[in-house]
């Protein structure tokens, strides 16, 4: 087993510990943000484990877990926890309903995509994040040397593609950016905003640094994921490990009780 194959297993172990820690806090405090964070982190952990598994062998249901929880939903659910903390208003309940229904619908679309998986392209020599999508080769351009291509009919036109596990135009793939944009705005934006509020007031330095670490962790996985699309897939596992370490450290630091401090949320409230 190479170091790159070992990294997602380490990330999984850290994320599992992180998930248990957050859900324990939910069990004690019954505060909704901890529940959403816990669900999102559990998705992150299962996605990370699925990725580790898929670096060793193929299993279509492990791929189901990897795509749905690891690639599509986890950031949105973690970020929704932050939204619940920042805004305690009725409209947040509506957003919760949209997130739940959207997640169930994404699961349904993923189930529908399962019989169409092109498993012949799968290899353990590349991260699954480099293999899941079917990529269009734009007219006039050529695929990288040694890459297998195919011609398919898409929206009435013949296009050259680099085949991936999910066929071109899979509806579940079209939904994924919505979840990830929402997750990016709420998780990273929420952490940056909280850090800024505490920093501006010059109070609770642990929460300033904690939120900076949370934002940095979320950005490290987001950036590594984007770089994968540009052919730097070897950085993904490292980005995931960094994300797990930074976010866990950030949450723990932000939640650390301060001397004479009343129980307060770990990020600033906008109410």
């Amino acid at each position, binding site marked *: 087993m190479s170091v790159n194959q070992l990294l997602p297993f380490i990330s999984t172990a850290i994320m599992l510990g992180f998930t248990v820690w957050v859900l324990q806090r939910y069990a004690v405090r019954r505060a909704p943000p901890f529940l959403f964070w816990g669900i999102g982190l559990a998705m992150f952990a299962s996605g990370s484990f699925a990725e580790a598994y898929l670096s060793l062998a193929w299993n279509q249901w492990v791929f189901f877990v990897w795509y749905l929880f690891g690639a599509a939903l986890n950031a949105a659910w973690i970020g929704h926890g932050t939204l619940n903390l920042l805004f305690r208003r009725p409209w947040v309940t509506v957003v919760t309903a949209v997130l739940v229904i959207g997640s169930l619908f994404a699961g349904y679309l993923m189930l529908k995509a399962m019989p169409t998986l092109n498993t012949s392209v799968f290899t353990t020599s590349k991260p699954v994040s480099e293999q899941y999508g079917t990529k269009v080769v734009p007219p006039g351009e050529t695929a990288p040397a040694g890459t297998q291509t195919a011609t398919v009919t898409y929206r009435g036109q013949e296009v050259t593609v680099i085949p991936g596990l999910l066929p071109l135009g899979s509806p579940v793939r079209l939904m994924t*950016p919505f979840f990830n944009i929402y997750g990016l705005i709420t998780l990273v934006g929420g952490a940056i905003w909280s850090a800024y509020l505490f920093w501006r007031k010059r*109070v*609770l330095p*642990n929460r300033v640094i904690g939120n900076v670490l949370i934002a940095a962790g979320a950005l490290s996985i987001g950036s590594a994921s984007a770089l994968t699309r540009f052919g730097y897939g070897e950085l993904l596992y490292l980005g995931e490990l960094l994300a797990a370490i930074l976010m866990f450290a950030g949450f723990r630091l932000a939640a650390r009780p301060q001397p*004479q401090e009343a129980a307060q949320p770990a990020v600033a409230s906008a109410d």
Partner: protein
Amino acid sequence: MGTQTPQQSKSHAPKDSILFEKVVPVALIVMGVLTVLLILFAAAVLLGFIHF
């Protein structure tokens, strides 16, 4: 002895700290810019400007 106000009861960022005066604001700005770039990237994928 005066009564402690809620503000006084909280810990404060150390004065003249390079971490809090320089590193944190720069980190927040850089991360904010990176976040916007990633959102634009995701939006470009969503709108079909970038094919993956």
